[in-house]
C-alpha cells in the first residue's frame, strides 16, 4: 500500500490563487485554469502534470492575504488551541496529595472525631483537586468517592450512592433536552426570531438575546445553552459592516449570551451544576422542590436581565447600529415556519415545565404516587417521549457534557461525608460564634461579598460543591433557614464574569476568541458588582417582608 501519496488537490484556478506567482509562470496557465479547472491527478501520478502553483512554498502568505480581504471581523485563530491542556499534571496531583496528607498529619481537634478529621482531609482533597485539576475536571470529581473510600470514611456503596441522587438525573435529562433543541435547530431558529423581532436594532437585539439565553438556561443546563448560542452570535456579527464596530459588537453579543446563560441558570435547580448540588443538599435535609426554587429564582432572573443589558451597553458604549435583518428573515421564510419536530420538542418542553412547576400540586390533587411528578422523573419522561417520537436517539446523547454529572456527584458525595462524619458540624461550630449576634442582613452582605470575590477565581460548580453542605449545616444549627443562606450564595455564584476559569460558560466565551481578557475583566466588573448588589437587595427585601 502506498504510504506517501501526492497531494490530492492539484490546482486552484488563478482567481482562486492567492499566492503571487514567483516567476510569473502561473500567469497564462492560471487564466486557462480559471476557465476550466483541470482534473486532479490520480494518486501516484507524477508531479509534472501539475502547473506552477504546485511549486508554491507554503500557505502562510495566502492565509494573511485572505484575512486582510475577507471580512471586517478579524478572524479568530486561537480558540481551539486555547482549549488544549495537559491531560495529567503530576506536579499538581502531588500537590493535592500533599495538602490532603498535611491535614491528616495535623493533630485531631478535641471536639472532632477521627472520622471527622479524615473527612476534613477529604474536604481539602476535593477542593484542591477540583480547583487545581491535575486531571480533567470530571476525572478529578470521580476521585472524590475513591478518596472517601481510601480514607475509610465510607465503603464503596455509600461513597458512590450520591451519584444516583435524583438531581443527577434531572441534570442529565436537561442535557438531553439541550441536545434535542440543538439537533433540530430550535435554538438557532429562536435566535433568528430574536434578530427579526429586534428589527435590526443592535441594543434591542442584545436584550432579546440575553432574555432568550436566560429563558433557555432555566430549562436546560446553562453551559449547554451558551455553547449552542455563541456560534449563532458569531454569525449575526457578519451583518456588521463597519470594521471598527464589528469586533466590539461581536464581543457584546457573545458576552450577552454568556451573561444570559449565567442569569437564566439561577432560575431553576436544573439551570446550573451549582444549583443542582445546592438543591440536592437541601433536599437531603428538608423538602425544597422545584417550585420552591423557582419562586425565588424567577424574580431574580427577571430583575437581572434588564440590569445586565443596561450595564453591558454601558460597559462597551456601543452604538445602536442597525443590522440587516433580511438574511434572517429570508432564512425563516425559506424554512416555512416551525417543523413538526420542532413543534413536538416545544410541546414536550412546555409540558415538562408545567409538571416541573406544578407537579407536586397535580400529584396531590390526583392522588398520584408520591414523587411520581418530581422534577427528575418528569425530566426523564420528557426525554423518553422525545426518544419514542424519534426526535433524539442514543447516538445524539453520546456527545453531551457527561462530565458535569460527575462534578455534581462529587459535590453531593463530599456533603454526605462531611455530614455523616460530623466534620460539617465542627466547621460550623468554628464559624457560628463569629456570626452570632450579627443581623441577617450583615451575614448576607458578608456571604455575598465573599462569594462574589471567590467565585471569580474558583470554578463556580466546584465552589458550590465545597460550600453548600457547610451552609446547610450552618443554617440548621444557627437557626437561619438554610435557603436564606444557600440561595443568595448560589445566585451570587452565577455572577462569575471576570475570568475564563470561573465557569464553563465564561470558558466558552473565552475560547470563542471573540472577547479579549481586558474586555472580559472590565465588563465583568461593571456588570457583576451591581448584579451582586441586586442579589443582596433582593434577599434583604424578602427577609424584611418575611418571604424567606
Amino acid at each position: 500500500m502506498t504510504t506517501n501519496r501526492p497531494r490530492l488537490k492539484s490546482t486552484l484556478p488563478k482567481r482562486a490563487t492567492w499566492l503571487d506567482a514567483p516567476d510569473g509562470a502561473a500567469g497564462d496557465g492560471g487564466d486557462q485554469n480559471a476557465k476550466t479547472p483541470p482534473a486532479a491527478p490520480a494518486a501516484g501520478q507524477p508531479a509534472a502534470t501539475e502547473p506552477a502553483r504546485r511549486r508554491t512554498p507554503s500557505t502562510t502568505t495566502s492565509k494573511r492575504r485572505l484575512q486582510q480581504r475577507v471580512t471586517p471581523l478579524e478572524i479568530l485563530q486561537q480558540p481551539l488551541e486555547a482549549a488544549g491542556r495537559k491531560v495529567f499534571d503530576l506536579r499538581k496531583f502531588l500537590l493535592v496529595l500533599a495538602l490532603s496528607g498535611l491535614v491528616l498529619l495535623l493533630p485531631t481537634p478535641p471536639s472532632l472525631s477521627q472520622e471527622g478529621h479524615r473527612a476534613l482531609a477529604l474536604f481539602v482533597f476535593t477542593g484542591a483537586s477540583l480547583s487545581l485539576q491535575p486531571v480533567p475536571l470530571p476525572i478529578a470529581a470521580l476521585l472524590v468517592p475513591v478518596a472517601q473510600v481510601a480514607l475509610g470514611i465510607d465503603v464503596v456503596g455509600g461513597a458512590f450512592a450520591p451519584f444516583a441522587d435524583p438531581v443527577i438525573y434531572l441534570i442529565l435529562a436537561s442535557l438531553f433536552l439541550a441536545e434535542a433543541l440543538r439537533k433540530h435547530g430550535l435554538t438557532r431558529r429562536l435566535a433568528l426570531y430574536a434578530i427579526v423581532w429586534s428589527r435590526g436594532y443592535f441594543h434591542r437585539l442584545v436584550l432579546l438575546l440575553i432574555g432568550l439565553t436566560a429563558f433557555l438556561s432555566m430549562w436546560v443546563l446553562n453551559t449547554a445553552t451558551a455553547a449552542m448560542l455563541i456560534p449563532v452570535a458569531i454569525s449575526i456579527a457578519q451583518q456588521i459592516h463597519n470594521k471598527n464596530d464589528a469586533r466590539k459588537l461581536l464581543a457584546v453579543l457573545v458576552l450577552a449570551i454568556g451573561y444570559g446563560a449565567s442569569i437564566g441558570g439561577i432560575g431553576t435547580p436544573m439551570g446550573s451544576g451549582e444549583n443542582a448540588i445546592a438543591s440536592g443538599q437541601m433536599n437531603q435535609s428538608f423538602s425544597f422542590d422545584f417550585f420552591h426554587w423557582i419562586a425565588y429564582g424567577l424574580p431574580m432572573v427577571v430583575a437581572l436581565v434588564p440590569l445586565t443589558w443596561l450595564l453591558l451597553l454601558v460597559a462597551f458604549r456601543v452604538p445602536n447600529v442597525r443590522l440587516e435583518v433580511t438574511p434572517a428573515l429570508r432564512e425563516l421564510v425559506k424554512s416555512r415556519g416551525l417543523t413538526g419536530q420542532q413543534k413536538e420538542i416545544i410541546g414536550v418542553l412546555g409540558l415538562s415545565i408545567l409538571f416541573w412547576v406544578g407537579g407536586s400540586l397535580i400529584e396531590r390533587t390526583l392522588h398520584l404516587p408520591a414523587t411520581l411528578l418530581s422534577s427528575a422523573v418528569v425530566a426523564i419522561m420528557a426525554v423518553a417521549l422525545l426518544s419514542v417520537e424519534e426526535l433524539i436517539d442514543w447516538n445524539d446523547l453520546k456527545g453531551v457534557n457527561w462530565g458535569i454529572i460527575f462534578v455534581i456527584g462529587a459535590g453531593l458525595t463530599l456533603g454526605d461525608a462531611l455530614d455523616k462524619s460530623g466534620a460539617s458540624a465542627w466547621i460550623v461550630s468554628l464559624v457560628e460564634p463569629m456570626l452570632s449576634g450579627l443581623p441577617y442582613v450583615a451575614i448576607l452582605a458578608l456571604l455575598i461579598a465573599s462569594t462574589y470575590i471567590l467565585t471569580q477565581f474558583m470554578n463556580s460548580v466546584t465552589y458550590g460543591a465545597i460550600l453548600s453542605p457547610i451552609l446547610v449545616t450552618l443554617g440548621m444549627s444557627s437557626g437561619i433557614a438554610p435557603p436564606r443562606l444557600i440561595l443568595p450564595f448560589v445566585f451570587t455564584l452565577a455572577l462569575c464574569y471576570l475570568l475564563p476559569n470561573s465557569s464553563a460558560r465564561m470558558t466558552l466565551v473565552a475560547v470563542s476568541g471573540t472577547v479579549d481578557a481586558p474586555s472580559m475583566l472590565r465588563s465583568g466588573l461593571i456588570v457583576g458588582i451591581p448584579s451582586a448588589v441586586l442579589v443582596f437587595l433582593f434577599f434583604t427585601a424578602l427577609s424584611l417582608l418575611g418571604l424567606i
Partner: protein
Amino acid sequence: MRIWLIGADQAGSEALQQLQKNPAITVIVSDAGDKPKAVSDHVIDKVDMVEHVTPVNINQLARRIRPDLILIDAGAAKRAMGSVSSGHVFAEAMQSEIAATSELPCLVL
C-alpha cells in the same frame, strides 16, 4: 468537481481516501493546523490552506476556492474542545452554524 474539505481529521482522512478513487474530483484541503491526521497518516502531503474556518469567513473563502461542495470534518475541533465543559456541543454548534451560513452546499461529516 471541486470539493473543499474543511478539517482533515479521522472522517476527513476517510473521505479523502474515498475521493481519491475518482481522479476527476479536485479536493482542496484546509485545516486549522498544518499537520492534521490526513497529513500524519500520509493520505496527503500537506494541507492546501492553513485556516481556521468560522461562520464569519466561510463564504469569503468559498468565493475564492470556488468549490462545488464543502465537507466539514469536525473531529479535531471536538477533540480540541474536549477539555472544556460542553465543548463538544460548542464544536458541533459551530460546525452547524458554518454549514447554515455557507452559500454553497455544505455537509458536516
